[in-house]
């Protein structure tokens, strides 16, 4: 993954100014204080925001981005939310993480906790197997056991997928063996600590 000359601003607020970084690692972690541009960078890498100037974005494509906010449709059950994105129960019932969503299939989002909704969202993104998986604070509200199952899966059984993940918990990134990019507190950002 390589990014050269990245500049981006929201109106007058510049977030990135000529930012360069590169990483050979399969998992890249973004760490830093709230409001420092982690989510913005994820959106740019996933192709949902366009940088201001010509920039070299050498990242795998297409990508799946999971934001912090819940994106399950409230009128559909978990099963229907999975089917919406092409999920077929026969294909995925043998998946190592299937046990996490199986008991929730008939529930609608308003019948589940934050953690359960987050679990379904992560599962949906992971089984989609995109070349690039962008995760914004993926383990918020998720219990420790479920988090560990996801972490183990991402580390051991997901070799073909490049992952960029933002989090406030650096220990999660260390555990995943990620290449950690630390965001400074002050905007605009033109360099990050590797």
């Amino acid at each position, binding site marked *: 993954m390589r990014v050269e000359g990245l500049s981006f601003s929201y109106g007058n607020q510049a977030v990135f100014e000529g930012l360069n970084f590169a990483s050979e690692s399969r998992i890249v972690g973004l760490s830093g204080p709230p409001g420092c541009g982690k989510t913005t960078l994820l*959106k740019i890498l*996933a*192709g*949902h925001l366009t940088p201001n100037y010509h920039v070299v974005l050498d990242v795998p494509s*297409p*990508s*799946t*981005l*999971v*934001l912090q*906010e*819940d*994106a399950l*449709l*409230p*009128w*559909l059950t978990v099963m*229907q939310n999975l089917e*919406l*994105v*092409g999920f077929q129960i026969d294909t995925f019932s043998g998946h190592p993480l299937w046990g996490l969503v199986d008991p929730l299939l008939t529930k*609608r*989002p*308003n019948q589940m906790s934050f953690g359960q909704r987050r679990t379904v969202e992560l599962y949906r*993104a992971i089984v*989609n197997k*995109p070349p690039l998986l962008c995760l914004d604070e993926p383990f918020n509200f998720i219990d420790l056991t479920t988090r560990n199952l996801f972490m183990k899966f991402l580390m051991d059984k997901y070799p073909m997928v490049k992952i960029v993940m933002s989090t406030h918990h650096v220990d999660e990134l260390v555990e995943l063996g990620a290449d950690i990019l630390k965001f400074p507190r002050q905007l605009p950002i033109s360099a990050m600590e590797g």
Partner: protein
Amino acid sequence: MLRLAKIFGFVLFPLIWITLKYFGEIADRYLPDPIAVLESASLVDPSIAVHTFYTVTRFTTGFVFGTTLGVGITLIMYRSSLINALLLPIIQSSRAIPAVALIPFFILWFGFSEVGRYFLVLTGTAFNVAVAGLEILSKIPERYSIMFASFGLKPTQFCIRYGLPSICDGLLPTLRFSLSSSIGLIVASEMLGAQVGLGYLAQSARATFSLDLLFLVVILLGIISSIADWLLIILWGKLLFWRR
């Protein structure tokens, strides 16, 4: 306390009416006697129930079909940029014309037939619903638009799985407004060319200087409007099962 105030709200108008009539000594030509208003119902032929039935059937039929058509137009316009570009100016400009102003056209096109009245309400409702529906769909929350892009959702799936429920989710205020407009349109069209209905009855009462009957019609329209609005809120609440 609030519950008491709500109950009192229902009887406030009759109380003011009775007080003004019996203690204010206002002439019958300005404010009729409540008893005379009630008695006027028995003098109508066909019965007041028949007139009410026709009015209610007309506006509910036009309103239901108008809402369905409006949602359909929204989805088609959202799905096709070409159709959207072609239809939007027509819909926007048509919406600016008061639907009541179209009544003479509908009479010329359809005569005094029932079809014309249904079409009038249908048109008045459908355009409002279509514009509101497009507005709702133009504000897709970012988390959903990113999810749709991430998973490459097909347009048809988008319309059925997201578009339709999403429109329903935000349409109630427009529907409540359109419902009261529908009642107004039907009454106006009945005044201009009908042999039965509350609008026709109001027109007849005006022609015969029967203020008692005119008052009765106005009160009935108020009651019908309130009940229809209440039923719409309840039905819409049932439809939006995910909010419960």
